[in-house]
């Protein structure tokens, strides 16, 4: 066990014994400087902490360390060390260079920021090599690759949409990297919609509209993340519209991501909408189990973890809708994996990830809530939804409710029937089968159902 692990483990024990404010205040930025001859030196950030740990928590700390350490511990000493000094002990990941007496960096007052500053805002982690394209995002991946190979010539604009944590931003960065790899001279601008908006507001406020236009209209590839935030910002929409036109006319590539298809973005002008739908629209759906396993496997390999197929399988099974969560789960397992120096069993993994499974269980909602959500989504009264009327405007939502109750709540058919105004179980079976078929056939219904699902998960 390294000193860091020993200290982390001891902190874990102390955290339970102390109140949260006390723990956070007194154990923040502490670490073990040395562990030699049964003597431990603990670094603390200031003299207050030193005094307090010595006078108040010393017996507790000693006990915790003795409980965990395999070797006997005779003495614990506290010493004020700042992070900078700590670097000398090799505590930091890489040793910091000695601070030399450098001349003062009085820099001339910089004029307002120049465009070059955010030309290289791409995350090096997000490349096509690291993107695992399952069936769920074949189209988006293929389109992104095509765009990266011939920017501005194939699909312009490319519009990628899909739920949270499914890799939209990853694809966006990957396009940027790929283009730069082919032709290093190209100007790539990656911005979030929020940054675009802020820049525009800033430009308007400080009378620098011309500079703003110069920045955005002179790029070869414009990558905009989360465009849905443009909704109901009219001025920014107009500016974006013109920016878009300028780029598009000169065959420069625009790639846009959003969490929903263009049509579903509320309060967006028609002329902009039609432009967003001009090129290629590709969706990224939630990955299937096989893809999830593949993702977990690759990421585990990246982190040098060797996990048994059962564990990979288990992790992929419990997190289903979000790749970010999937990586989060893996990171947690990794932390324990590092601590335990290898061997980790399926039981331990289950234990570590119990909180994830627990939150998922908590998310399960009641039949009443589900009915509410569907009624709200289709904008119909609950009474009508549960009533006898068989108009199409009501029967479809009703059937979707039954389908979702079966899919999401795993209710029995008789149960579904009785929840929806005392219907027969055969009605429920029919509704389920009908919608299941329609989902395959109609994109519209699939989208509706996905949106309702999101609402369910977001409760």
């Amino acid at each position, binding site marked *: 066990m390294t000193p860091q692990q020993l200290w982390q483990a001891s902190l874990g024990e102390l955290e339970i014994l102390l109140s949260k*404010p*006390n723990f*956070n*205040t007194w154990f923040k930025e502490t670490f073990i400087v040395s562990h030699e001859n049964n003597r431990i030196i603990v670094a603390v950030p*200031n*003299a*207050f*902490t*030193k*005094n*307090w740990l010595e*006078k108040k928590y010393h017996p507790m700390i000693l006990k915790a360390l003795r409980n965990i350490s395999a070797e006997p511990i005779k003495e614990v000493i506290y010493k*004020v060390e*700042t992070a*900078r*000094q700590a670097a000398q002990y090799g505590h930091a990941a890489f040793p910091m260079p000695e*601070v*030399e*007496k*450098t*001349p*003062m*960096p*009085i*820099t*001339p*007052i*910089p*004029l*307002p920021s120049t465009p070059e500053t955010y030309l290289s805002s791409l995350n090096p982690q997000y490349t096509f090599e690291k993107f695992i394209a399952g069936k769920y995002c074949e189209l988006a991946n293929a389109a992104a690759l095509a765009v990266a190979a011939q920017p501005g010539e194939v699909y312009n604009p490319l519009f990628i949409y899909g739920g949270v944590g499914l890799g939209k931003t990853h694809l966006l960065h990957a396009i940027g990297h790929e283009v730069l790899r082919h032709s290093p001279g190209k100007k790539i601008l990656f911005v979030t919609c929020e940054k675009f908006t802020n820049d525009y507001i800033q430009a308007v406020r*400080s009378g620098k509209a011309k500079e703003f236009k110069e920045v955005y209209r002179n790029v070869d590839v414009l990558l905009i993340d989360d465009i849905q935030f443009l909704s109901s910002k009219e001025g920014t929409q107009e500016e974006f519209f013109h920016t878009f036109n300028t780029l598009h006319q000169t065959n420069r590539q625009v790639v846009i991501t959003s969490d929903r298809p263009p049509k579903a973005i509320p309060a967006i002008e028609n002329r902009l909408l039609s432009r967003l739908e001009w090129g290629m629209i590709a969706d990224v759906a939630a990955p299937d189990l096989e893809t999830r396993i593949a993702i977990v496997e690759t990421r585990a390999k990246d982190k040098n973890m060797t996990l048994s197929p059962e564990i990979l399988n288990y992790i992929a099974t419990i997190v289903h809708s979000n790749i970010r969560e999937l990586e989060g789960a893996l990171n947690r397992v990794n932390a324990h994996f590092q601590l335990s120096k290898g061997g980790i069993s399926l039981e331990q993994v289950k234990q570590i990830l119990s909180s994830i499974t627990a939150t998922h269980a908590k998310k399960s909602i009641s039949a009443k809530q589900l009915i509410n959500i569907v009624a709200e989504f289709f904008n119909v009264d609950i009474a009508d939804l549960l009533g006898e009327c068989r108009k199409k405007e009501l029967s479809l939502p009703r059937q979707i409710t039954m389908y979702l109750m079966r899919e999401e709540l795993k209710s029995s058919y008789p149960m579904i029937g009785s929840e929806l105004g005392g219907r027969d179980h055969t009605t429920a079976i029919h509704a389920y089968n009908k919608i299941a078929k329609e989902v395959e056939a109609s994109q519209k219904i699939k989208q509706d159902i996905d949106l309702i699902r999101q609402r369910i998960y977001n409760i």
Partner: protein
Amino acid sequence: MKISCTQENLYRGLQVTSHIAGKESGLPILTNVLLKAEGGLITLCSTNLEIGIQCRVRGKAEHDGSVALDARITSEYVSLLPKDRIDIEVSAESVASVQCGTFSTKMKGVVADDFPIIPTIEKKEQTVVKIADIKRAIQNVLFAVKYDESRPELSGVYMAIQEANTLVLAGTDAYRLAELTVPVTKNFAGTKEVIVPLRTLQELARILPDVSETVEIYIHDNQILFCTDEIDLISKTIAGQYPDYKQIIPQNHNTKAVIDIQELTKAVKSSSIFSRAGLNDVTLQFASVSEGKGSLTISASNTTVGEHTVVIPVKMEGGENSVVLNHRYLLDGLSRMQGDQISFAAIDSNSPCVIKSLEDESYLYLVMPIRQ
């Protein structure tokens, strides 16, 4: 615990200590001040875990003991008491019964056990400075410092005790730099350099009394302690090496002018109205008229407001020159110059300008031009 003192003394103690208590801390006990009676002395303590303040309150301590009281409530309450004798008795349940004139109050306190221990350092290698001097230094240097998380060493004030029995304070935000040297009345034989957090000096300037006394300074183990008869303020210092700012103070100049402070201030202020918002630029143009005489033209123009030019006669040596400065930075420095006249030395439009008072050599102000 049982103590008696005057309302004035207790209120003064609370004013000194309660300010740092209870700001942006995660630990609830830190919103309190600690009232302590020990060996006949009454003390008030507060801390935010970076700075610790202890203030001795004149009065009579009959029984030893301590209690932690909410800082804001207590100081507000004591400020409203009549200027009379106050008797405080604290029960075992940490309830303070306060009697003052016809006022009688019971205040709920917290057990003092959880109150952090204010660290102390050994009182050796003493430096003594007049309070008036250290206050002047703080006032003339602190304004140039800006809190910057990415450069912690620049977020504090450089403080150096020199063998020549002087104390130097310097601060910069990388655009301007202020340095003041003050005399030391008593010094150990040696030198010391530390970086003191901005907040510590702000607090020190706030709590030091206005009387012509002295303050003792001790520096050890990354900590600095300021002591007067009544107050102890201890703070951590900022780790790291302060950049060698002496290197950037220009030793030569191409133009050096002697300018009347009031005239210059007025000219810069009037030009500032016409400077561009956000940039705050005013142009200073030096031209020589005859041997030893010159003119300084201060101008600014802004497309929306208009343009403005003032010419003032100056004593000048060296050639023509032109610099563009941020008027705020310039005025910040001018307003702190002693006497009637300053010397203004410039090299070119991209090098720092040096401003000094003619009467007071101890204060130096350096400002960077705006790049054109």
